[in-house]
């Protein structure tokens, strides 16, 4: 029986529920003589290090050594592309930046030692937000630009408006903080357990810092306790420190950031400032859009440039933009280096166009869903970067199916009637679409390799370049391998990700994990399968049915039982100079309807119901896919509502802990939560007809923001705007603004 498409539980579920699943830091007990690391953190957002004397730390009992600039035999810089992240900086670039590390026999000893390192600083002026960066001309990139059509028609549009939108960042809050464990291996080289989405890049950075060739460094990712983009680049520094410590001392070294330090020093989703002008025709179709997008990139480049590109690619969301000019620029500020986070700039780009659609609806006095649906892509239309939107009719199908299944029109009427009767507690409902481009926009990342081993007893080990962070990649890989080889699921073991099994891997990111690695694994399995078929053909009738017997026969006939598989995504290209191309292999589509209730006295709100219809192609693994949709949606709800990153005047993150930074908990789960997958949705030219599912559902949460806007509007009159996240405070004041007259007390 086929296992692809079956609703199987997560491949690691048993280990998860028993506590037997091991994460990088759970392996400490296997390393006698383990040393623990603690950073020396700078108390300034921007400063010159005028003196750093680590010697006093050595007087602290239990401190073994310190790591400072002179200790790296290679280049002590972890910046992946520009080499712009010194591991031991002489210029502090953000508050709490580590300037040195202390290694101790215990974590407490290392921590006490770090407190004794004598560091002196000369504070320098700091740039702490986008406005300050614009005033100071502080940027990490040149302007990036996409344009299409004649935007000058904007001025003569029937409806013309402009505005500004501030979009907050987001902390990943992977439950497992950054962790790495490094030791000298049997050959005297370096081995690292790292909680990383990108083992090959972690290997590259460790090799760079130690001045070693890459074959001297082995990185293994056992599994991750969540990542969401936050361990794509940001895992490298912890691994580099652990490796440098192990190299220097010859002893195993563990780095595990505490939550407070992790939040203080690792990058987040980029805050954005967007300035826009939009023109609409009288029939509510968009005529032209002009916008400037500024992101707060923090102190170093990281992935900020491709993130801005993806924001620019997604300013259309699911809407046809006949004339557009969007310019994006990454600001350099004295903050953590903002990084990848589920959606990778797409969410910020989409929030802009959804703001524009909502305001157009209010200004034209039309229901927002009408304005949105009139602008949805139609078959044959192309994006503002020239890529035809294949299967655009799926968007319309999803829209109408979801409106019907969620009883959208009837509920909206019922809500309007109820709101008229309730002065202080009101409800609102909204529907929003998502179209999300699938592929890394850096073309060369769109490749994957796999190495599949079949043993004589018919059991299988699958190695591939993807990492498991909870998204269910290993479950899907196991299913793909089992079906392609034609064996039972239990025969297939998916190995942890190691750079000595599959080299030069891409990050597990961009929702591409199963598309790329699944195809590579299937390629390897098909090679073995065809070799085995030849062997089986020569076997007596009863015997060839038994997979193990065929494997044994193949072995005895000297037929190889291992194979490398490979996959490269076909037909994708993009030219950043012209802003034209086909950067995406295909688009993922979906839509959500959300209903919320707001208490006008306080601004407090509750999400009452959400209905989602998502196009995942032919689902490889329905339980996994539904989990991605629900989890991504709730994570998006957090980003747009209660998750608020705040920095104080000194540039210190004021919300650096779970008690001050609130992620969604049980109280944010809507009591009614219906998730459906689009039927008859097989996607040609993608592994087994499936579509990517990791990132797109996050942006379905925009339906919650738009439902909040509907409720606020019901409290009064006027155009409703509020920045993101829509905290209870922002909703409270938005209600106050639209309440022309507060209802008189009776």
């Amino acid at each position, binding site marked *: 029986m086929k296992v692809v498409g079956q609703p199987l539980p997560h491949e690691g579920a*048993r280990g998860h529920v*028993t506590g037997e699943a091991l994460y990088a830091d759970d392996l400490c007990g296997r390393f006698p003589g383990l040393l623990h690391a603690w950073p020396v953190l700078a108390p300034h957002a921007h400063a010159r290090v005028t003196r750093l004397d680590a010697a006093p730390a050595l007087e602290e009992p239990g401190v073994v050594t310190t790591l400072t600039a002179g200790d790296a035999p290679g280049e002590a810089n972890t910046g992946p592309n520009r080499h712009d992240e010194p591991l031991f900086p002489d210029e502090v670039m953000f508050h709490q930046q580590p300037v040195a590390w202390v290694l101790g026999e215990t974590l407490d000893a290392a921590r006490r030692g770090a407190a004794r390192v004598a560091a002196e600083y000369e504070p320098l002026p700091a740039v702490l937000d986008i406005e300050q960066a614009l005033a100071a001309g502080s940027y990490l990139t040149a302007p990036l630009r996409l344009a299409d059509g004649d935007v000058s028609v904007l001025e003569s549009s029937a409806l013309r408006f402009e505005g500004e939108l501030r979009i907050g960042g987001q902390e990943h809050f992977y439950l497992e903080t950054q962790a790495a464990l490094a030791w000298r291996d049997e050959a005297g080289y370096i081995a690292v357990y790292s909680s990383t989405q990108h083992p090959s890049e972690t290997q590259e950075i460790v090799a760079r810092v130690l001045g070693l060739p890459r074959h001297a460094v082995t990185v293994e990712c056992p599994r*991750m306790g969540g990542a969401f983009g936050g361990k794509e680049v940001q895992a490298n520094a912890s691994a580099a420190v652990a490796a440098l410590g192990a190299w220097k001392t010859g002893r195993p070294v563990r780095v595990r950031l505490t939550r407070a330090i992790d939040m203080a020093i690792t990058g987040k989703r980029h805050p954005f400032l967007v300035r826009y002008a939009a023109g609409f025709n009288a029939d509510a179709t968009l005529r032209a859009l002009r916008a400037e997008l500024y992101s707060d990139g923090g102190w170093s480049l990281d992935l900020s440039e491709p993130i801005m590109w993806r924001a620019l690619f997604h300013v259309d969301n699911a809407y046809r933009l006949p004339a557009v000019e969007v310019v994006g620029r990454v600001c350099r500020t004295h903050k953590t280096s903002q990084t990848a986070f589920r959606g990778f700039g797409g969410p910020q780009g989409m929030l802009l166009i959804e703001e524009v659609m909502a305001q157009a609806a209010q200004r034209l006095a039309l229901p927002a869903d009408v304005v949105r649906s009139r602008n949805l892509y139609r078959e044959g239309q192309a994006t503002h970067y020239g890529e035809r939107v294949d299967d655009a009719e799926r968007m319309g199908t999803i829209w109408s199916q979801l409106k019907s299944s969620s009883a959208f029109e009837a509920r909206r009427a019922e809500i309007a009637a109820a709101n008229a009767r309730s002065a202080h507690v009101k409800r609102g409902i909204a529907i929003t679409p998502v179209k999300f481009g699938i592929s890394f926009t850096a073309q060369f990342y769109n490749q994957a390799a796999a190495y599949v081993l079949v043993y004589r007893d018919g059991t299988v080990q699958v190695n591939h370049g993807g990492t498991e962070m909870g998204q269910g990649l290993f479950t899907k890989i196991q299913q793909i391998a089992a079906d392609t080889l034609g064996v039972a699921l239990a025969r297939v073991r998916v190995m942890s990700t190691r750079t000595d099994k599959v080299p030069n891997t891409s990050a597990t990111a961009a929702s591409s994990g199963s598309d790329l690695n699944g195809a590579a694994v299937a390629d390897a399995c098909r090679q073995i399968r065809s070799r085995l078929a030849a062997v089986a053909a020569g076997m007596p009738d009863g015997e060839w049915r038994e997979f193990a017997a065929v494997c044994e026969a193949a072995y005895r006939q000297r037929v190889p039982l291992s194979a490398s598989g490979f996959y490269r995504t076909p037909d994708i290209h993009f030219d950043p100079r012209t802003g034209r191309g086909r950067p995406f292999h295909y688009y993922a589509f979906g839509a959500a309807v959300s209903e919320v209730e707001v208490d006008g*006295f306080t601004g407090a709100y509750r999400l009452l119901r959400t209905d989602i219809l998502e196009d995942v192609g032919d689902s490889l693994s329905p339980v996994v896919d539904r989990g991605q949709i629900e989890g991504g949606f709730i994570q998006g709800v957090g980003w747009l509502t*209660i998750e608020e990153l705040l920095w104080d005047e000194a540039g210190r993150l004021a*919300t650096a802990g779970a008690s001050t930074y609130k992620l969604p908990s049980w109280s944010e789960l809507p009591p009614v939560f219906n998730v459906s997958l689009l039927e008859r949705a097989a996607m040609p030219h993608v592994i087994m007809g499936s579509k990517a599912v990791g990132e797109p559902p996050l942006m379905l949460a925009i339906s919650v923001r738009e439902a909040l806007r509907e409720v606020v509007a019901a409290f009064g009159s006027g155009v409703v705007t509020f920045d993101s996240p829509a905290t209870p405070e922002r909703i409270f004041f938005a209600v106050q603004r639209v309440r022309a007259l507060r209802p008189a007390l009776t």
Partner: protein
Amino acid sequence: MSALAFVLNGREVEIGEAAAQTPLLDLIREQGLTGAKEGCAEGECGACAVLVVDADGRPGKSALRVVNSCLMLSALAAGREIYTVEALATNGVLSDAQRAMAGAGGSQCGYCTPGFVVSLFAEQHRPDRTGPCEDEALAGNLCRCTGYRPIHDAAAALGAAPDGPLLRRLERAAPVLHAVSVGGFSRPATVGECVALLAATLDARLVGGATDLGVERNLRAKTWPHLISVEAIDELQQFTSTPERVLIGAALPLREIGERWRDAPDAVHEWLTLFGSPPIRNRATLGGNLATASPVGDGAPLLMALDAVLHIAGPSGSRTLPIAQFFTGYRKTALMPGEMLTAIEIPKPLPQSVRFFKIAKRRADDISTVALGVSLDVDRGRVRRARWAFGGVAATPLRVVEAEAAVSGGPWNADAVARVQAVLDKTLRPVSDHRGSKEYRLEVSKSLVEKYYWELQS
């Protein structure tokens, strides 16, 4: 068993004086039991959750309480019996809670899962549970992957707890906490001993459930020359309700207040539900909440609205103090050196109307931006007595006496609301911080008065 030892999954573990102030989580993980994990080190995420066998209302029997092992300083485990996720499967056969979580797709990355499993297991084994497992029981666990729906389904799928070693264990009494006195840690058995210890060790710090102290330990690496645990003092665990008053022992965990004060006004039960999460309420105490004197603590506003009286013991005997006089400044109280809270008394009859409002970013388990405790007695159309007590609007919890005078003796109507709001405009001086701006704090405080009025009308 030595004075500083506990039983972990049936095996005795020595704590050792050096580890007395080490988080229990670290000690457990050093035993090779790595299921419990550090997620936040603040008692917010529940990834470190473990089960403590604790006394139950049923004589001679016991119950499983979920606690955050990251906040529990190891010495506080002395004499206790503790189980981790590793103890829940029997001979490789998963427990119901584990099977339900795995089957429902309740784990993705799996890092938070042992904590959820432990909470779900305790909820399934809750002796007074009659209906399905309550979602609220899992409110002390955070998951970043699933969005909670499958975990909700797993909880809903659980029936009665099946027979098993842990269920049978609950038919026997929990270990009785004995007095402990070792270097740097004491657990006296009486108030008298405790006061004497306080007098003898001036640098000693009292500890109840350590839900605040544990955070100081983890975030600021704080250690204390001497800790005195009040958990073994029976008098501090009392709860009595008579026609004249309710008396709540200062060290009674918050959970038990709700369980034992069954006929309390709805406001009290709502207040307790908003007061931390279940693992926090299993450990946190009202005495600790008041003595830490946080301006955003949830305890004071409602207790002020109820005219609570604090019972204090000290070197020169016992005294009582109205709660309105207790907070003397930011994180400062009227406790003299050597004094301790022993009980919180709530006089009866209770006000005709009492409410507690909490404004926060997240609806559950968040710290107040603003809290309001309000009570009102109206006689023949005239306000006889009103209390407006706020958290989050000043350096201390604040009873706004002027607003009481503004409505006293007059009718309770829209004009009275406006008069209270006018007083708040003049007297509240909130500050801006990461929880809310000063403008929001002031405006929402005024708005809450109106909300209270409106809800009373309708």
